[in-house]
Every structure is written in structure tokens, then in C-alpha cells.
């Protein structure tokens, strides 16, 4: 069997270590964020083409009730990741209750065609710490170190 050149082997094991460490960082649970049994009511006003507030912050484990009011045409909220939806007719308020049992940031999207910029009507739901963001930054720093290590040696 043909052997790889030693320089290539050298680079391969460095990248192997990086992948192992990156996977460890990615899969490692962050210190547990205390689950809140409390309830949180949030009023969201939807108008073309924004939610107010645009960013909704809740604590992990909280029972969240979103009260969606539409001020112009029919709008909806679809929560990425949670795959939940609520639709409000103009002038009416509809509620959506759920337990914030997944941490991270989830995009809110209008689920009813509401006009020209409908596909871009978005907001955010932030549940606790965004572990993916911090893990990504850590992996980036580690990756840059490995790139320098492999290219410069």
C-alpha cells in the first residue's frame, strides 16, 4: 500500500486533532442554564414588514405566551426550530403558548403572504445563551491556530 508523504501525514494528524477538538466543543454542553418555571407574556405588534419588538428574549424553561396583534393586514409568526405558528387578522390578537425548552436563537418569520417584502419579515426569539455562537467563535480561534500551525511548519 502506498504511504502518504510525511509532510502530508503531519498535516493530516493536525487536522485530525482539530476536528476532534472542534467536535468536542460543539457537543460539549455549556454549564446548565437554570430552567425557569415562571411564565412570560410578550405582546408583539406585527405590521408590514416588522415585528415590534423585533427580538424577543426569554429564559430557558419559561412558559411563554406570545400575544400577536396585527395592525394592518393579516400576519403570522412561525418560529424556526420550534415549528410553531400563530396567525392574527388585522386588529385582532391571537396567542401562542409554549415552553421555551430549546436554548439558542430562533428566527421568527411571517407565515402569511402579507405584501412585497413578506419573505423578509423576520424577527428573533432568544432563549438563554446562544451556545452555537460562542462555540463557533471558540472553534474559529482554534481553527485559525491550526491553519497557522499547518501552513507555517
Amino acid at each position: 500500500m502506498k504511504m502518504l508523504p510525511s509532510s502530508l501525514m503531519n498535516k493530516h494528524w493536525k487536522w485530525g486533532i482539530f476536528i476532534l477538538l472542534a467536535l468536542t466543543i460543539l457537543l460539549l454542553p455549556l454549564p446548565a442554564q437554570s430552567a425557569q418555571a415562571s411564565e412570560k407574556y410578550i405582546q408583539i405588534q406585527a405590521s408590514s414588514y416588522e415585528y415590534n419588538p423585533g427580538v424577543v428574549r426569554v429564559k430557558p424553561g419559561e412558559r411563554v405566551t406570545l400575544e400577536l396583534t396585527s395592525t394592518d393586514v393579516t400576519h403570522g409568526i412561525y418560529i424556526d426550530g420550534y415549528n410553531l405558528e400563530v396567525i392574527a387578522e388585522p386588529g385582532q390578537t391571537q396567542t401562542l403558548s409554549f415552553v421555551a425548552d430549546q436554548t439558542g436563537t430562533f428566527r421568527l418569520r411571517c407565515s402569511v403572504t402579507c405584501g412585497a417584502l413578506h419573505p423578509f419579515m423576520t424577527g428573533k426569539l432568544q432563549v438563554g445563551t446562544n451556545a452555537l455562537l460562542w462555540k463557533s467563535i471558540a472553534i474559529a480561534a482554534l481553527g485559525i491556530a491550526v491553519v497557522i500551525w499547518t501552513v507555517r511548519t
Partner: protein
Amino acid sequence: MNRVELTRVPLIKTALRSRWPQLILRVIALAGFLLAILAGISGTPVGSRNFGIVFVWIGWWALLMLVAVPLFGRGWCSVCPIPMPGEWLQQGALLKPQGRGLGLGKRWPNKLRNIWLQNGAFVLVALFSTVILTSPLTSALVLTAFLVIAIAASLVFERRAFCRYLCPVGGFIGLYSQVAPVELRVIDTSVCASHTEKTCYAGSAEGYGCPWQVFPPGLVKNTYCGTCMECLRTCPHDNLAINLRPFGTDLNNPTGRKMDEAFKAFIMLGSAVVYSAVMLGPWGFLKSAAYHIGSVQWLVYAAGFLTFLFLLLPGLFYAAVALGQTLGGKKAKPTGKAASRSRLFGTHRQAFTGFAYSLVPLGLAAWIAFSVSFVFANISYLWPVLSDPMGWGWNLLGTASLSWTPYLTQAVPTLQALILLGGLLWASRTSLRIADQQPAQPTAITRPLLQALPIIAFCAAVTFGLLGLLIA
């Protein structure tokens, strides 16, 4: 050298040399393109129910940015329908050369033999993009304008002047095609040296001289090769090949790095950042400003957009390059204030152009990460419009009533993070390689790592910004 010649496979070679598979694909694409224009003009004004919007800006865009560009480079250009009608008129034939075509056959002006016009065309489209991407009529008018300009360019200038110098899409496909794992190259340049007819450039009875105005024996990068396969057909010595190669091979080649391409890298990277903020961010005022063309808010948005693309991003990058040059010991020896400034600028300008190519993988990753979110959330609009392209209540394929369903919403943020991290690491690696290639001053102590570190920091800052916009 790490290449596999795909055209050694008889089936691949036959398929690429034959004009029929390409013509069939182009005719299908032309039909789709014309239907998109027709739907935009006469179909429903609701973008998410109109074939012209959904097919072009979601379906085609997904195919282009997630598959065609990263894997096949300019593969899309080889089947693009936009230059077809003009080319048919110019050549006076649908397939092989025969008879005489129409047109003045003028040479493209020397001063415009660069991609600055393509840069300008892309920025122009980008400035109006929130309307173009959502209004079927505006989108149809823009597509029609592309078609008309391509026909006019074919009738006035020789070969594919539109594709090479004007197409706003072709400009960035060319830049990012350097990353693709396929290339068209000459097999043995000594064969070309002894071939006096140069049929690959001049043409023959078997095919046209390179429509992209490229001299195939001199090809070292994918940027301007439209993979139209004409040279495969005209070479009597069978001396051209399609090769499989490692990703990003062209980025390691220091030949032909130019300021217009460098700025294309800034324009694309900057646009990906702005689009992520405007289209995927939670800020309604930004969307409104980008949409209301001609309003004061739009003018402020346009000024901000242009400042970010042409001043802020290149300015910060220039500062990073200058810092790297200073740290890396490549500063020219000053002999007076003015001379020093001029020499310093000259040195930095060259390094600025060179290092800008580090932004190619970073920009491509940014566009893929942006597109992943946009495409997976909206691709389900495609199924109803396939049955009802005009939004007139048809149900041709029985899919008209399928509702909007975002796909992979749980996986998308992780996918985006991985793509952006991959782009950052690739950009870092490319900047270190470019640092190694910088010409050293005779008295300078060269420290490539120190030159590259500020560039890596710049790339990391942009990546963290994008992570903030897309997944935070």
C-alpha cells in the same frame, strides 16, 4: 499534479464535444427565462405566487449559489440562456458555424477590458434588489433589460462581450469559479506552440473561436473561461481537457491578480453582509429604507451601502494590509516624506490587491450561508408556482395547494456556522499562502506570518459579524 482528467472518460468527452446536450439544456433554460419574463409581466403581482420571482430568485439562485458555483465554477455560464438570441444572430447559426451572421463585430474597447463595468452593474442591481427580488414586474423588466443588452452587445461587438464585460452575475461567478474543483486547461502547451492556426482562438469549421476572448493555451485561472466547450471542439490535436482538481487551486496562483477583481471581492463580501442585515435581520426600518426607492430613507440606505462597499470595507482591509506590511518588515526605506508616502502606498497597493483574494473563499462562504437560510425557508413556494406559474388559479401538476413549509429550520443555524467557519479557515490559509508570495524588498526582513495576521483578524471580524447577523 493532483488532477484527474475527466475528459479521458469517453462518455464525458462525447457529451461535452457534442453540441446537442448543451443546446437542449440552454433551450430549456431559455424557455424558463422567457416564462419568468412573461409571468412577471402578465402574472399575479404577488411575488411568492409568481413563477418569475420564485423560479428565478429562489429556485435558480439556490441552484447557482449552493451547487453550480462552488462545484462547477462557471458551469452555469455554459448553459445560460441570456446570450443565446444575440449569439444566434451574431453567428447566423443555431449550432455549428455556417454562413454569415449579423453584427458589426467591433473589438471591445481596450480601456474597458476589465470587470469594473460588471462591478458597477452588480452594485446597481444590488441597490434596487429588495424591489427586484419581490416585484414580478420589476424583475421581468430587469431580466428583459439583460436580454436586450446582451443582444445589442452581440450585434455591435465581437464574441460574447456581454458575458465577459457586462453581465453582473458573470462577474461574481468568475471570481468564485477560482474555488471550484473543475477546470478547463490545455493538456500540453508544447502542442499549442507548434500549432500555427490556433483554431481554439480563431475558430474552425468544427466550432467558434473562444467566445470569451480567452486564449486557451494561456489559461491559468477559471475566472474568464466560460466553459462553453468551443475549444474542445476546435482543437484538432485533442489537447484540451476538463480536469478535476483540489478546491481553490486558482487562489494559490499569483498570476493575474488585479484591482478590479479585488474590488469585486469587497463588493460581494459587503453585499452578503448588507443583505444578511436587511433581508434576514429583525430591523423593519432597514427593510423599509431599502424598499422605498427614491425616498430620503432609501438615499441614506444607498449612501450607507456604497460607503460600506467602497470605503469602509476596503479601507479597513487596507489598514490591515498596511499593518501587516509594517509588522512583516516589508516597508520600503523612506528617503523623504513624500517619497516615503508614495513608496509606501505603492507597496501597500500591490499587497492590498494580492491579499484581497483571501476574501474569495470568505465571500463565497458568506453568500452560501446567507442563501441557505433564505432558500430553505422559502423553497416550498416553488411547488405551487410549478402548477400555477402565473398565479391565475391553475393546478397543472396538482401542487398548487401545497402550503408554505420552511425546511430544516433546526439544522440551518449549525449549517450556517460551519459554512462560515470553513470560509474563515480557508481565507486564513489563503492569506498565509499569499503572504509567502509577496515580493520582498532587497533589505527587508520578510515575516509572512506577521503580514497575514492582520488579514486573518479582518476575516475573523467579518465572520463574527456574519455569525451575529445570521445565527445570533
